[in-house]
C-alpha cells in the first residue's frame, strides 16, 4: 500500500460549502484541514459545510482529530457540519474523539506567599533531613568502632582512592594556577610601593589559610560530590537502596560512612598539597617579575606559623563533611528517574559550594577576631 496524499476539493453554492476529501487523511494534513475549516468558519454567508469521505482511503487519528476540531470551529461560529459517506473505520476514528475527555486546564499556580511558604518548608525539611543523616552517620561510625556494626574499611579505602588519588593532578594544577595568579596580582601592585617582598605574606597566608582548602573543596564538590550524588541517586531511583534496606542492612553504614570517612581522610592531604604547590608556584613567579625568590622564601618562613596550616586543615575537614553529607543527602532523597538524578546532582554541587564559601567566611571571621590583637 502506500499512500496517496490527501486531496481536497471545496465548492460553495449559496450558503452551503461541500468539501470533497480523497486519498489518505493523516497527521501530515492536520494543519491544512484545521486552517481550511477555520477559514470557512469566518465566511459570513456560509451556513453549513458538508464533508464527503467517499474517496478517503485512510483516516488516521490525527486527521480525524483535525476534522473534529474543524467541525467544532464551525459550530462555534454557528454553522453546521455534516460528514457524508463515512465508512465504519472512519466513523470509529471520529467517534474516538467524541467520547474522549477534553484536555483539562492546567491547575492554577499558587501565589507568591504560598510559594515562599512551600520553599521555606522544603528548606526546613532538608535541614532536618541533613541533621538526621549526620546523626545516623555518627551512630554508624561509633557502632562500627565498638564492633556492633560492620566497619566498611575496604569500601572506605576504595572511596579514598577514587576521591583522593584520582583527583591529585587536577587539584595540583589548580593550586599552582591560584599561586601564580596571587603572585602576579600582589607582586606587581606591591612593587609600586617598594614592598614587593611582602607578596610572601599574601601568597603564603592566602594559600595556607584560604585558597589551598577552598580551591580543593570546590574541585571535590564538582568532581567527587557530583559523582556521589549521581551514584546514590541512580541507586535510589532503581530501588537498589530499598533493596539494601529490605535486607536489613543500614544503607548509611554501607554507602554514606565510607564516603564521609574516605573524603575526611584525603581532603586535608589534598589541601596541603594544593597549598604547597601554590606556594611553590608563587615563589617561581616572583623570579619572573624581578623579585628575589630566596627573599620571598625567607619572608614566608618568618610569616607563616603552624597555626596557619592548622587553620587550613581544620577548614578542609569541615569542607569534606559539607561536601559528603550534602552529596549523600541529595543522592538519597532523589526521586523521579534520570531527570531527578540530574536535578539532585546540580543541587548537591551548588549547595556544597555555597556552604563551603559560607563556612569559610564564618571560620575566617571567628579566627581573625580571636587571633588578631
Amino acid at each position, binding site marked *: *500500500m*502506500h499512500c496517496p496524499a490527501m486531496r481536497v476539493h471545496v465548492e460553495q453554492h449559496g450558503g452551503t460549502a461541500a468539501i470533497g476529501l480523497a486519498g489518505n487523511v*493523516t*497527521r*501530515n494534513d*492536520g*494543519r491544512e484541514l*484545521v486552517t481550511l475549516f477555520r477559514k470557512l468558519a469566518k465566511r459570513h454567508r456560509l451556513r453549513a459545510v458538508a464533508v464527503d469521505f467517499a474517496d478517503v482511503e485512510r483516516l*488516521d*487519528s*490525527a486527521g480525524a*482529530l*483535525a476534522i473534529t*476540531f474543524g467541525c467544532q470551529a464551525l459550530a462555534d461560529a454557528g454553522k453546521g457540519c455534516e460528514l457524508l459517506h463515512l465508512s465504519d*473505520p472512519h466513523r*470509529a*476514528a471520529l467517534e*474516538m*474523539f467524541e*467520547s*474522549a*475527555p*477534553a*484536555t*483539562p486546564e*492546567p*491547575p492554577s499556580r499558587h501565589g507568591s506567599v504560598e510559594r515562599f511558604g512551600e520553599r521555606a518548608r522544603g528548606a526546613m525539611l532538608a535541614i532536618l533531613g541533613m541533621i538526621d543523616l549526620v546523626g545516623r552517620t555518627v551512630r554508624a561510625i561509633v557502632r562500627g568502632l565498638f564492633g556492633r556494626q560492620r566497619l566498611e574499611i575496604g569500601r572506605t579505602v576504595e572511596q579514598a582512592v577514587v576521591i583522593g588519588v584520582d583527583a591529585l593532578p587536577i587539584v595540583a594544577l589548580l593550586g599552582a594556577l591560584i599561586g601564580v595568579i596571587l603572585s602576579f596580582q600582589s607582586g606587581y601592585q606591591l612593587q609600586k610601593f617598594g614592598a614587593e617582598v611582602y607578596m610572601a605574606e599574601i601568597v603564603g597566608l592566602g594559600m595556607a589559610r584560604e585558597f589551598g582548602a577552598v580551591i580543593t573543596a570546590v574541585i571535590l564538590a564538582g568532581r567527587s560530590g557530583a559523582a556521589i550524588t549521581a551514584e546514590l541517586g541512580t541507586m535510589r*531511583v532503581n530501588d537498589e537502596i530499598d533493596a539494601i534496606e529490605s535486607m536489613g542492612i543500614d544503607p548509611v553504614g554501607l554507602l554514606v560512612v565510607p564516603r564521609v570517612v574516605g573524603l575526611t581522610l584525603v581532603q586535608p592531604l589534598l589541601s596541603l598539597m594544593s597549598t604547597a604547590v601554590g606556594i611553590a608556584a608563587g615563589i617561581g613567579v616572583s623570579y619572573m617579575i624581578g623579585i628575589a625568590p630566596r627573599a620571598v622564601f625567607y619572608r614566608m618562613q618568618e610569616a607563616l606559623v603552624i597555626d596557619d596550616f592548622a587553620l587550613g586543615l581544620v577548614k578542609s575537614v569541615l569542607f569534606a563533611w559539607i561536601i559528603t553529607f550534602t552529596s549523600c543527602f541529595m543522592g538519597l532523597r532523589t*526521586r*523521579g*528517574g*534520570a*531527570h*531527578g538524578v*540530574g536535578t539532585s546532582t546540580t543541587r548537591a554541587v551548588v549547595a556544597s559550594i555555597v556552604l563551603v564559601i559560607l563556612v569559610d567566611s564564618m571560620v575566617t571571621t571567628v579566627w581573625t577576631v580571636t587571633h588578631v590583637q
Partner: protein
Amino acid sequence: MSSELLVVGHELRCGYDAESVVLDGVDIRIERGEVVTILGGSGSGKSTLLKTLGGLLPPLAGTVELFGEDLYAVDDARRAELLQRTGTLFQHDALFGSMTLRGNVALPVEQLTDLPDEIADRLADTKLDLVELAHLAERFPSQVSGGQRKRAALARAVVLDPEIVWCDEPTSGLDPITAARLDHSLLHLRDVFGLTIVAVTHDVESVRTIADRAIVVGCGAILAEGTVTELEQSELAGVAEFFHRVELERTSWQPEHRT
C-alpha cells in the same frame, strides 16, 4: 483480512556479533492486520529477533523487508521514514522521566508533525484515554504504577497510528489483571486502527488472548508456527517441551495462590 505482506525476514542471522549468534536461517512473514506473537524461553533470541525486525539491530546475514523495502539497505533518512510507520512498546516502558505522561505521548506528535499544540495535546489525551489513563496525564512516570507506565508507553507507541506495533514482553512484570487489561488495550487498538501487532512474550495466557498466530523460537531457529491451539498440541521436540514447562509452572503455583 488483506494478505498484504508488511514484514518479510529472509534467511536472517540474528545476534550482536558473530560470536553471539542466537538465531540463524530465520524466515518470517507477517501480514497486515495480524497479531503475531513470538514465544520462547529466556535466551531463546525472541527479543533479538524483534529488534532485528524492528530496525534496532542489523542482522548479521539475511534481509528484513519492511513495507516492501529492504530496511537495512535503504539510507538513514528512508529508514527513519519507514520506522515512523511503526511503534514500539519496550519491555521496561522507556518513558522519559522528566516529562508527564501527556508530554511523553505528545512527543512524537510534536517532533514528527506540524500539528497545532492543542491538537497534539488532545491527541495525546485521547490515546491516554484509550488505555484508561487520561486522568493521570499530568503525572510523571515515577508517580504511577508499573502497569500504568506500560499502558502509557503503549499510548505513546500508537499515538501516530503506526501500521505495526512491536511489543517486547508487554505483560512482563504485571499482575494477571493488569496484564489482561493491557491485552485488552492492544486488541482494542488493533480493532480501532487496524494495527498489525508483533509481540514477544513468554506469557502463554496473553498469547491465547491476543494472537492470531504464534511462532516458537528455540535452539537458534524457528521451531514451529501456527495457532496457539495447534502449537499446544504439537509433538515437535522443543515446542512440546516449551508448553509442557509453561503448564508445569502454571499448575505448580496456581493452587497456592487460590487457597
